[in-house]
């Protein structure tokens, strides 16, 4: 009874938040619209990471590989159609980019997902670096020259606002996908893998296929986000999409918000992006130190994230009553 009701409350709250977020650019200054883009992009990335990392407990350190593949394969496909209308180009790029991510992720999934824990994390870091280096050094990918992306905006609408809304659609779709996965048999299978993979397997959960499916879904979403991000920048090189700080941040969002929850990565991304871009924007010398300090404090003081902290406080209150 209560569970159904709380689910309904959550859906209503999310829809209200969605509408509020969609209307926000009307009142926000252009700079904050750009920050809003980054918040939505990061939240969606964090959620995509959480489908594998949060639910199944496989912490990937190489999510940027798929952001880069999505952006570069999509961009190269779009460049082939340079004369077509921009919206069509974007759709073709989206199809090409996500297909490339799906195929590469499916090929990587079975060998890489045999590794566990730290070994998996490191293998993914290696994978991301291999793709980054190849992208940068093989001429046909134009990683070091850079790729230019056509403007796909709608005439009359400020491009910043357009990309903001596009990121919002992507983030909402990611949240929907993550939510559907979380409440499905597949999602419970992923959770059981996180709790105890061997036992789950013994009880008949197809762990190999579930992990691979989660890996592919997470990769495709990252690829789509990468392509949108590349469009919002207009021009990218290897360094703008294959970034180690993206690899790290995808994890930190969940860690800050709450590992394995849906709201966690969103809260984490919002706090971290606003903190680094708005609060610390004027202190560039101090930036790295502050990020490092935040990480250290986070691990020591709130190991289960803000959601965990909140739950603990609420739980205490209930007990007192």
């Amino acid at each position, binding site marked *: 009874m209560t569970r159904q009701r709380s689910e309904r409350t959550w859906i209503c709250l999310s829809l209200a938040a969605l509408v509020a977020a969609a209307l926000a650019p009307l009142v926000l200054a252009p700079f904050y619209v750009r920050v809003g883009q980054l918040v939505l992009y990061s939240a969606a990335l964090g959620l995509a990471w959480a489908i594998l990392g949060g639910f199944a407990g496989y*912490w990937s350190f190489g999510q940027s590989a798929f952001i880069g593949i999505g952006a570069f394969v999509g961009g190269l496909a779009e460049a082939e159609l340079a004369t077509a209308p921009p919206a069509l180009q974007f759709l073709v790029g989206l199809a090409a980019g996500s297909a490339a991510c799906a195929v590469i992720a499916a090929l990587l999934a079975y*060998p*890489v997902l*045999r*590794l*566990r*824990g*730290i*070994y998996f*994390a*490191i*293998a993914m870091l*290696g*994978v991301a*670096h*291999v793709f980054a*280096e*190849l992208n*940068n*050094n093989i001429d046909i990918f134009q990683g070091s020259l850079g790729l230019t992306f056509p403007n796909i905006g709608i005439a009359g609408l400020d491009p910043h606002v357009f990309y903001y809304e596009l990121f919002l659609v992507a983030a909402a779709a990611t949240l929907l996908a993550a939510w559907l996965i979380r409440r499905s048999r597949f999602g419970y299978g992923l959770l059981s893998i996180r709790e105890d993979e061997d036992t789950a397997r013994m009880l008949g959960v197809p762990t190999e296929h579930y992990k691979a499916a989660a890996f592919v879904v997470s990769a495709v979403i990252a690829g789509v986000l990468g392509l949108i991000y590349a469009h919002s920048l207009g021009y990218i090189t290897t360094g703008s999409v294959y970034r*180690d700080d993206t690899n*790290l941040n995808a*994890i*930190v969002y969940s*860690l800050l918000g709450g590992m394995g929850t849906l709201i966690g990565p969103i809260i984490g991304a919002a706090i971290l992006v606003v903190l680094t871009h708005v609060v610390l924007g004027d202190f560039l*010398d*101090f*930036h*790295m*130190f502050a*990020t*490092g*300090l*935040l*990480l*250290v404090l*986070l*691990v*020591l003081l709130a*190991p289960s994230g803000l959601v965990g902290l909140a739950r603990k406080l609420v739980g205490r209150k209930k007990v007192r009553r």
Partner: protein
Amino acid sequence: MNLILQTLADGLVLGGIYALAAVGFSLIFGVMQVINLSHGVIVVIGAYLALILSRLLAVDPLLTIPLVMAALFVFGYAYQRWLVQLAVERSSLLASMLLTFGVALMLRNILVWIFSPDFKTISPPYAFVHFHLGELTFDLVRVSALATSLVLLCLLAAALHWTRFGRIVRATAQQNLAARLCGVDARHVYALTFGVSAAFAGASGIAIGMVLPFAPPDEAFWTLNAFVVVTLGGVGSPAGALVGGLLLGIVNTLTAQYVGPAFPNATMFLILVLMLLVRPSGLLGNAFSPSR
């Protein structure tokens, strides 16, 4: 023929230094399964300490090794005992990895404040001397850095093998619980191991500083490098680090010479991934905990 021999020789010299830079990382990973992402920054700190000390005392940079090692041993002990261990106990091993990354960012930022982001070098008076052996050319600096690395690695291997401290460290790595039942204070041993690891990282920083220019952002390279060396050679032993380091050095120089100067990094990571898939415990591996 001459070219390939020279390339191999350069690779071996480079590899010896890689091995020393990675051995501490390997020890920590082997003993407490902690991935120390601040390893690289400790290497770079070692280089800066040697730079200051050798100017201050007006001595050869290699003579500052004992001082640098002592200072970093104390740092490493305190760092593990009061920071990393807390993270492991309160959270998880993976979270402790994030903690060390945070510390690396902070230390790197501090280094930039103190020393500026510019490249620095430690050049001893014999910086440009080289000699010939048959048809091969060797720089004296590189060879002395390599010799230092080998001597230190042998000392560490001997200490781990024959001293009481070494036996305790190996026992804790193999069976934490059993070692504790025999009266080993595991936390103290962990902190000691971390201290030793930091000391050797610092010493390798000196060798690196003599051979290559260095700057604070290099720390990321040395951490990744340690990773690859350890996955190649095997966790937890100086011999594994030596094998991994030498192999990596040779692979790097060979790729740079015959495939293209832009490709050593790609090959390095490709080897990392392949090794993890085929033999995650490394060539000489004795992984005490399973990877899969």
